[in-house]
């Protein structure tokens, strides 16, 4: 058994590891410093770069904003003008082209044996409800998977119906006399012509012979009076 006395002072003792403590301390400090510098430098770079971007964006916005606002105002004005012009277009679409109607009546009617005694056109203003949107979701759907005691699924409010559109509807009444043995045939043919005529087909919704009767009891005077009534579809202000 070897026994020896340790005569070393504590400050004379040396670290026994592979790397000295001083190296570990220096390496850690330098690594930490480098990491802090790198992260800090990146953060600073990022900060100033963002600020630069912001300054550029502010400058850009300062240049763009007045023109942008001006264009927004112009778009508002355009919207307003469009609404007014559309309203006027509606007036044009809703009206009945009376010249075309009367000219076509003149062309269709045989001067003999039919004579008109009274032609009237009466317009009625009303409101037409446009058809509802068909692909709208159903207001309430039952949960099928829940069986008989199925709880209604979350109900969605029913879609708002589109606003009603003002429209004109015209009633055209033609009253007249027809002469001769075949007078009634002439009236029926005239009525059919009104229904078939390509010019008037789009104008009329319905054409009906309302009445055909003898004008007087005198046998010699073979004269009948008739009334035909036609109705146009709703001519919408749109």
């Amino acid at each position, binding site marked *: 058994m070897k026994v020896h006395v340790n005569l070393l002072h504590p400050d004379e003792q040396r670290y026994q590891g592979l790397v000295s403590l001083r190296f570990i301390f220096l390496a850690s400090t330098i690594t930490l410093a480098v990491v802090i510098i790198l992260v800090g430098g990146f953060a600073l770079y990022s900060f100033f770069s963002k600020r630069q971007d912001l300054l550029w964006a502010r400058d850009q916005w300062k240049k763009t904003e007045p023109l942008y606002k001006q264009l927004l105002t112009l778009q508002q004005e355009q919207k307003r003008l469009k609404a007014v012009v559309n309203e006027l277009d509606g007036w044009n679409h809703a009206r009945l082209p009376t010249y075309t109607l009367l000219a076509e009546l003149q062309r269709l009617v045989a001067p003999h044996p039919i004579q008109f005694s009274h032609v009237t056109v009466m317009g009625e*203003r009303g409101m037409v409800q446009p058809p509802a949107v068909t692909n709208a979701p159903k207001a309430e759907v039952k949960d099928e998977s829940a069986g008989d005691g199925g709880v209604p699924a979350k109900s969605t409010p029913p879609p708002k119906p589109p606003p009603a559109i003002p429209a004109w509807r015209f009633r055209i009444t033609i009253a007249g006399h027809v002469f001769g043995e075949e007078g009634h045939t002439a009236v029926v043919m005239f009525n059919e012509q009104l229904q078939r005529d390509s010019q008037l087909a789009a104008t009329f919704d319905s054409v009906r012979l309302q009445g055909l009767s003898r004008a007087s009891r005198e046998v010699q005077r073979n004269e009948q009076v008739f009334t035909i009534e036609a109705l146009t579809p709703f001519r919408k202000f749109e």
Partner: protein
Amino acid sequence: MNINWSSLTKEQKQVAVLIGIGVVVLLALLYQFALQPMADSAEQHKRELVDLRVNIEKAAKVLEQEGRTRADTAALKDRLETATKSFIPAFGNLLSWATEQIYQTAHEAGVDIDSVSGGGQVMAAGTEGQTFLPFSTQVTMQCSYADLLRFLHALETKNPLATVTALSVEGREQNWEHHQVGLSVEWPSWAKPPAAPKSVGDEKKKP
């Protein structure tokens, strides 16, 4: 660089502790007064930058359409000006305008007018909130069917907004050629005084 804490004097230890405390305080102050405001400001800048980019993008899209918007607005304005000048009576001067229109049309068509009367503005169904209200005029005349056709053709061609809302042509026993004609014509009239239209270039001139 071997520092042995136990070998340091009391004063040296105090100085070392003070230096340590000083470094910590310095770091805390640096964080509080430099890093934290910088981070806050960076966050604020980031938000502002995002907003500005969104706005710039939106503006770019609108500005892309500038030419079209200006052209469309100018075209609409022209249409409205034409309509206002030629087809719509001036505000508050309805019957004289309509009378002038009817007599001028009748003159062109070679028709004699018996009477023109005004029914005034009509608050009809669907006119609430509209820019134009119907203004109704009643006209009576005696003319042949051919004259009536010429008159209606002239009226409807000259003014695409004039609407014949009622028409009555009645044959007369005494005179087969000339019929008693009554018609109602409606015109769009301003519901309230029209707003003075802005010129398209007005905004550009502003500083």
